[in-house]
């Protein structure tokens, strides 16, 4: 990938974008394709999915059969480079020692960031999700509604390629005609769950994921995304033609060398680079926003990880897209006598209302799935089906003891064997070994289902991040200290998730291995574990009660934007990445328009 490998940026850019993942990729794409000169800073190294992705490697080719280790927490073949729950020499801290009040922060140090390994689940927020306070009095409303973001959801889905179906369910929006790719057929266990879930009123429908099930119709999409811009169309068509459709093998978490899945380095960055308007500086760790005498941002300082020096780059507009918490860190570390609480923090809300997703689940074994005729279930390298939140009516009727909803993710069954596939079977086999064990392994392979609930957390005053007063990272940059607290809203929901999972398993004639926890606080995953960190620079209609406005523009500094998950006001059960991209595209359109008008 042609990067700025001379390490000598131009004297001035229109826009500096800090971060190269979903937010940075989308922001830079929109700006560069429409003619703005962009410099992207990425803290990690360059990364080339076409040569570095372990596509067909079996676990037997990996150390420890590919098992999870502290160096590779999601397994050896997870695409993450230079990161995980810990980054060497770049710690973060937690204010509390209480195990239930910890926040875990997943970071990657690579071009494309976390988009390289993510699950590709691409769900739209629905109309309710933008006005949660109006509906139940909790949290805050967004300053925008679904109708403001709907066209951008369409655009992002066309650009990155998302499979799924339009089911017309409550608060689960349809995409516009011609936008979605066809969903793959459900696997055996997914169909079986759908069949038996229906008895419980639990709907199982095709999920939406950013994987191409057919090649993109490049010319049509390019014309729709960049009308009246034949140059941008040409670059996009060329980039889309480099992408193959899924060949129904290999897990998406490894990354995708054939570019069938969305990840920033194969989808957002190639056409933006081809435009000639984007320079990318890797190994450049964003540190501070540089402020001018006029109260505007004039650039960014970064640590050059090659030599450890702090360096400066300059632009008309600065965009932080470094991940919600990392962008907070930059704003707070930009403090100076004039900006004693950090930049863009007159509200005092920078770092407040950090949210993750509520996660809890339960697994079981389904006798009907034992000894099935051999068949290949690799599919699209991730889920084909899911359960959208379905209890709106019951919630309105006051029958649930928690607000907001969750969806359920699951995958069946005959995936590539790994260390845990045939582990811990004694509860089923009675301890067999020898020929009987071989039979048992065949029998039980593919008969397990795990239902993972993913639900909405309400922002609260006890969940935030700030600068640790003492600890600095290897570059001398003060690190973040997290405060975390789940409320009953979340823990009750987690308990409900486990009970639903048990009901589903039992409806399928299966049995759970572990019973649901009596207290949801024991069922819920620790903060950050779902890696849906959002908030910290929430948007709003009132500059005293929010950090950014509806354009992801900070109230205090008009040429400073945050386009990652930071401006999220709530964290609907829908996975945030698609919404991050839609918001980033909308913000970038606003920047382009304001530059044209001479306002920025």
């Amino acid at each position, binding site marked *: 990938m042609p990067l700025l490998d001379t390490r000598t940026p131009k004297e001035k850019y229109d826009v500096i974008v800090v971060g190269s993942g979903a937010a940075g990729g989308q922001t830079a794409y929109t700006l560069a394709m429409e003619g703005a000169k962009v410099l992207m800073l990425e803290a990690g*190294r360059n990364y080339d999915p076409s040569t*570095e992705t*372990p596509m*067909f*490697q*079996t676990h*037997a080719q990996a*150390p*420890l*059969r*590919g*098992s999870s*280790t*502290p*160096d*590779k927490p999601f397994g*050896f*073949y997870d695409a993450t*480079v*230079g990161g995980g729950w810990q*980054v060497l020499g770049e710690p973060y801290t937690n204010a509390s020692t209480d195990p239930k009040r910890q926040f875990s922060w997943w970071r990657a140090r690579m071009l494309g960031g976390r988009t390289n390994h993510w699950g590709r689940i691409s769900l739209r927020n629905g109309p309710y999700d933008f006005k949660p306070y109006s509906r139940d009095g909790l949290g805050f409303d967004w300053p925008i509604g679904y109708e403001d973001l709907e066209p951008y959801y369409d655009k992002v889905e066309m650009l990155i390629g998302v499979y799924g179906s339009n089911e017309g369910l409550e608060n689960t929006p349809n995409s516009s005609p011609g936008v979605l790719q066809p969903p*793959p057929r459900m*696997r*055996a266990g997914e*169909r079986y769950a759908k*069949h038996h879930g229906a008895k419980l009123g639990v709907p199982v429908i095709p999920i939406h994921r950013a994987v191409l099930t057919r090649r993109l119709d490049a010319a049509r999409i390019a014309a729709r995304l960049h009308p009246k811009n034949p140059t941008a169309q040409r670059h996009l068509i060329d980039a889309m033609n480099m992408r193959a459709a*899924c*060949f*129904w*093998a*290999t897990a998406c978490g490894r990354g995708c060398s054939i570019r069938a899945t969305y990840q920033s380095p194969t989808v957002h960055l190639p056409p933006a680079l081809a435009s000639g308007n984007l320079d990318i500086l890797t190994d450049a760790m964003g540190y501070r926003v540089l402020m001018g005498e006029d109260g505007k941002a004039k650039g960014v300082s970064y640590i050059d990880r090659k030599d450890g020096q702090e360096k400066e780059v300059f632009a008309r507009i600065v965009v932080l897209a470094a991940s919600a918490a990392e962008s907070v860190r930059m704003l707070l570390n930009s403090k100076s006598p004039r900006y004693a609480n950090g930049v863009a923090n007159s509200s005092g809300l920078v770092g407040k209302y950090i949210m993750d997703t509520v996660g809890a689940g339960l697994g079981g*074994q389904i006798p009907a*799935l034992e000894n*099935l*005729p051999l*068949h*290949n*279930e690799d599919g699209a390298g991730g889920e084909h089906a899911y359960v959208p939140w379905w209890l709106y009516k019951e919630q309105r009727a006051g029958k649930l003891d928690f607000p907001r909803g969750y969806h359920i993710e699951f*995958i069946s069954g*005959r*995936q*590539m*064997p*790994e*260390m*845990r*596939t*045939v*582990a*811990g079977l004694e509860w089923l086999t*009675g*301890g067999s*070994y020898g020929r009987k*064990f*071989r039979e048992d*392994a*065949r029998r039980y392979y593919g008969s*397990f289902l*795990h239902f*993972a609930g993913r639900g909405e957390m309400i922002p609260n005053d006890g969940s935030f991040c700030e600068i640790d007063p003492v600890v600095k990272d290897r570059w001398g940059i003060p690190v973040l200290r997290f405060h975390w607290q789940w409320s009953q809203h979340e823990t009750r929901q987690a308990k409900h998730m486990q009970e639903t999972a048990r009901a589903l398993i039992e409806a399928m004639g299966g049995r759970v291995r572990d019973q649901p926890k009596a207290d949801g606080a024991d069922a819920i995953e620790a903060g950050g574990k779902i890696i849906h960190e959002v908030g910290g620079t929430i948007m709003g209609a009132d500059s005293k009660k929010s950090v950014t406005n509806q354009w992801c523009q900070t109230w205090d500094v008009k040429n400073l934007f945050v386009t990652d998950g930071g401006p999220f006001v709530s964290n609907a059960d829908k996975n945030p990445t698609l919404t991050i991209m839609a918001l980033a595209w909308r913000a970038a359109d606003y920047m382009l328009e304001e530059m044209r008008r001479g306002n920025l």
Partner: protein
Amino acid sequence: MNSIPVRIDRRTAIKWMLTAAAATAASTGAARLRASPAAPVAAEGYGTDPNLVRDYKPGDLWPLTFSEAQRLTAATLCAVILPAQAPHPSAADLGVHDFIDEWISAPYPNQRDDRPVILQGLEWIEAEAQKRFGRSFPNLVRAERHAICDDICSVEKAAPEFSAPAIFFARFRDLTAGGYYTTPEGMKDIGYTGNLPQATFDGPAPDVLKRLGLV
């Protein structure tokens, strides 16, 4: 996530193993059961940016542990747990014992926890073979090996004196199965038919749907 995670509490397992080793030493002669058969692991891990597309073999990244005798015992036990059964090779034929050596020699917490469980378990099984049959475990005949393994193959059903070796056996069986079923031969045996590029994904075949009552 398509299967249930292992529920073995490794720290408990280690405690039990150490207790058991001491007890066995008292009953069978301390000379055979030196308490620490290997030094702790001091190697480095592969870091957070390893090359993902090369082939790794046991011993490539950190030094292995097994002595020749331990390796032979481990291979024998691998073949007891997954014996050859035409056309499928045994776990020992596929070198799964070397993978187990790689595992217990690794500089990571889970593997460090497994290390004493496996090493002391192998020591126990050798001592048990000597005690019962006066020969080493690899030199036993099938029925003799099974006589020992039958006593330790279930954590739940094992008699109290075998509770610690049963923890070892459960762990060793999980490692053997994991090592075996991740190989091309093991994947074929278990019925995994994927990891091949396909032009289309057609979903489950009619015979699968019929079995599930979905047609």
